[in-house]
Structures are given as C-alpha cells and as structure tokens.
C-alpha cells in the first residue's frame, strides 16, 4: 500500500482579526517561498468585521457601531464581501499549490475544496452542499462562506462555518439600509443563513467539528494530517506581516466614498403578489453587488429566492435580465401566478428608479 503524504494541521485558537489576517499573509507567502508545508489551519476570531480585499470600510461597514461595540475592523487578503466574525464561528483554511490540486482553474479549485468541506460538515448530521460559486448551504440557507488568494502557484482557500450566530448583530455591523433592521427583515435574513446549533438542537463539540472537516479534506486529498506549530521562519515572517497589517494604512487602503455605492429599492405588485427588492449597486462599475428579494409571493422551493440572489451577485447591470433568464432556464420551480419577468421588472424598476444613498435610510 502506498504511504500517504502527511500534511500539517494547526489550530491557532481565538485571536484578534489582525493576527489572523497576518497569519494568512505569513502562511501564503511562506508557502510560496517553500518554508510553509501544505497546511490546514483552524482559527477563531474575537468580534470582527472583515472586509474583502478590494472593499472600502466606509462603503461596507457601520464604522461607528463597530467602534462602540469594540468590534475590530480588518481587511482580508482574500476576495468577496464583508462579513461579521466572532467566537460563534470556526474558520478553516487550506494552504496548497496548484500542482497538488491538479488544476490552475480557480473555479474548479474552489468547487473541489468547497465540496469536500460540505461533506465534512454533513457528517455532523446536516445536509450541507456546495452552492456555486462560493457558498456552502443547508437547504438553501448559507452556513459557510468562502474565498481565496493566490501567489504564484500557492493558494490559500478559506471558509467560515457558522456554529451559532447572531444574525441581528451581523446586520448592524454591515452597512445595509436601516429598514432592513425591522423585525420582519431580520427574520427574513435569518431565513437565509443557517447555523449548526439551530440545525442540531445544541452547539456541537468544537473538537468534533474540526475533526469532521479535517477528515473530509484528508479523504479528498488522500493524505493524513498531523498536528503542528508554526516553524521558526514562519514566526519571523509573522512578525513582519503583523507590523504591516495591524495598521490603519492596511485596513483603510481602498477608501471610496460611501455614496459611490447605492442601495436602490422597489416594490412591485403583480398577480403573483407583492415583491420588494433592494439592489446594492457599484455605480462606478455599473454592477449589481448584491440583491435582496422579499415578498408574499409563493414559490416552491422557498430557497429559490436565496439561490436567485446568489446567482445575481456581481452581475453587470446590462446583463441582469439575461442572468435571470439563464437562472430560471435551469431551475425547477413552482410559482403561483408569478412569472420570471416579474423579478426582472422589479429589479429593473429599482435600478431605474430614484436613487437612495446607502445607509441614509
């Protein structure tokens, strides 16, 4: 029998966001330089608001609320959107290279890692699945968000896992329209995310959660994991990385005015019912950043709405209608007196309508 390769697993425990981000930079650079072996890391955060690498704090976060609440603001080295992260979530991340993964296609790499992570999460007793491009969901509700960074052949791919989660706090940290903080809107947001505690009826043992994930990656890659620590060279790099990242210059490097992104809203009554849409738009790039759809219309499965929202992320405005059609062409759904065109009409109305700056509501 062929001997399996041994990869390192490290658990860096509960840390400040700056330390966790500095470790991301350290281990990715270290991997690229050949001083970091293939590694799985587990991590946890003191309450933090984490921006995607290209995001602006002013545009994405309620900075005052974070300051009042003692929530750290940090910038990831990976892509994607802003998230709220605290002790009730576990982070997992892999440091590998494209050669080991057998492909340089970034979407294939994301899929392979997410599918393995979903299998690991499922062994805890939930039905977790990968939802392209970067989510892991349970019955349409997001339980893990992911993102990556690369440098040369080395890659870092990381995800969250919601063990227990305070949805309302997340909504207050992120810069979304104030009316989204109504009880109804919070309930609607709660419908879109899942956590292990709610699904399993109790907070699972964290050791078991980590074991389930590492076991799934071990099987996917045909390796065994051995617990380790940062080596001396990594420790030295970490000092340098922290000095760079634990600074306002790093956190606020991509400042763009808050009014460059707008949240546009619209309410449409059709035969199928009342539909309310809110569209967050990057006006400089003429792109839909995110979309929220609520209403009293009937669709089955209910998760279709969350899947449509996910499918429309980062869509150029000019391609919105086409993307909605493409989504429905491949999505089996039952709708009562509601047509796909109603979604297009509602979104178009929001995009064409009166523009309201984000966060002023």
């Amino acid at each position, binding site marked *: 029998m062929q001997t399996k390769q041994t990869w390192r697993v490290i658990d860096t425990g509960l840390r400040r966001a700056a330390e966790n981000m500095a470790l991301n930079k350290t281990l990715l650079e270290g991997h690229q330089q050949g001083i970091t072996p293939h590694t799985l890391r587990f991590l946890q955060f003191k309450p933090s608001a984490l921006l*995607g*690498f*290209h995001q602006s704090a002013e545009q994405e976060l309620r900075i005052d609320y974070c300051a009042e609440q003692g929530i750290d603001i940090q910038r990831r*080295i*990976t*892509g*994607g959107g802003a998230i709220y992260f605290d002790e009730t979530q576990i982070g997992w991340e892999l440091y590998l290279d*494209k*050669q080991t993964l*057998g*492909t*340089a*296609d*970034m*979407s294939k790499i*994301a899929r392979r890692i997410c599918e393995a992570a979903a299998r690991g999460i499922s062994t805890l007793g939930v039905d977790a699945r990968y939802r392209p*491009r*970067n989510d892991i969901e349970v019955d349409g509700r997001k339980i893990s968000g*992911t*993102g*990556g*960074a*690369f*440098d*040369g052949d080395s890659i870092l791919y990381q995800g969250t896992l919601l063990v227990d989660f305070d949805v309302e706090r997340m909504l207050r940290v992120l810069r979304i329209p104030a009316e989204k903080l109504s009880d109804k809107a919070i309930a609607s947001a709660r419908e879109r995310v899942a956590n292990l505690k709610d699904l399993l009826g109790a907070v699972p043992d964290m050791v078991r959660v980590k074991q389930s994930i590492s076991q799934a990656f071990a099987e996917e890659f045909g390796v065994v994991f051995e617990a380790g620590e940062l080596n001396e060279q990594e420790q030295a790099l970490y000092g340098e990385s922290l000095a760079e990242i634990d600074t306002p210059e790093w956190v606020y490097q*991509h400042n763009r005015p808050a009014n460059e992104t707008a949240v546009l809203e619209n309410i449409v009554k059709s035969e199928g019912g009342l539909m309310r849409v809110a569209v967050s738009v990057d006006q*400089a*790039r*003429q*792109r839909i950043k995110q979309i929220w759809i609520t209403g009293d219309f009937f669709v089955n499965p209910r998760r279709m709405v969350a899947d449509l929202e996910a499918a429309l992320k*980062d869509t*150029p405005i000019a391609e919105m209608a086409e993307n909605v059609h493409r989504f429905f062409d491949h999505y089996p759904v039952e709708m009562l007196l509601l047509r796909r065109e109603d979604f297009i009409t509602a979104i178009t109305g929001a995009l064409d309508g009166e523009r309201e700056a984000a966060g002023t509501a």
Partner: protein
Amino acid sequence: MGTVRGCDIPEDLSYNVENNVWARREDDGTVTIGMTAYAAALAGQIVSYTPKKVGKSVKKDKSCATVESGKWVGPAKSPVAGEVVAINDAVSANPGLINEDPYGEGWLVKIQPSDWDADSAGLVSGADAISAFEAKMEADGFDGCS
C-alpha cells in the same frame, strides 16, 4: 495571431510564461504590461483591479496590480523592473476589460523600465512562447479557452 488551446497568444509580445503575463516595449521606451488570455481564462470574470500607484517602483516578478475574480485575489507579476508611469482608468471602471481584451484595452500598467535589455532577455516570444504555453497548459490540466 498565435493561439494555444483556443487562447490568443500574440507572437509579437514578450512573455513570462510562468507568471502568465506579457510585456510590450513602446516607441517612447515605456513597457505596457498585462495578463495573458490564458491567465484571464483561469481567473474567470475579473471584478476588481488595484494597480500599484503611479510613481511607485516595481521589482521584476513582483506584483504590479492585484485582481479579483470569483472571490479569488492575487497579484499580476511584472515581467520587468521599473517605475509605474500609468495605470488603466478604463479597467478601474470596468475590470472585465481584462477578460474581453487582455492585449488591448485590458492592459494593467505601463512601466518605465530600469533595465529593459537585461529583464527582457529572460522573456519569450513567437514560436517559443507558443510551445511554452502549450507545456504550461498541459501541466496545469487546462482544457482550453472557450
């Protein structure tokens, strides 16, 4: 124009194949730098672009711009050392230009090279570039540009 597995690889440009970037010496002595069609295909739809600032110096094979696609963030590595003299406002406004026109409107930065002759000696073009990209795509397990 040369193509490899459906990806355009213009034969008149100079490439660092490993870093998947191209360089073109302009008449004014500056060097225009960009990602290859192959690099753009691997990345998928590019949604963000942050170049180094004008006036900053860039080392050979170090980042001259950071791009994001499908939640992946990574550097584009300059094939030559020098100083950034121009960044691409059209790509800032529409990063998808990198996918649509990687050798034209989708360029990343222009650099005043510090030693073009030395740095360009390590770059490949023409038939050598075509065969080097074929070998890279084979190693990367790449099906082809669609």
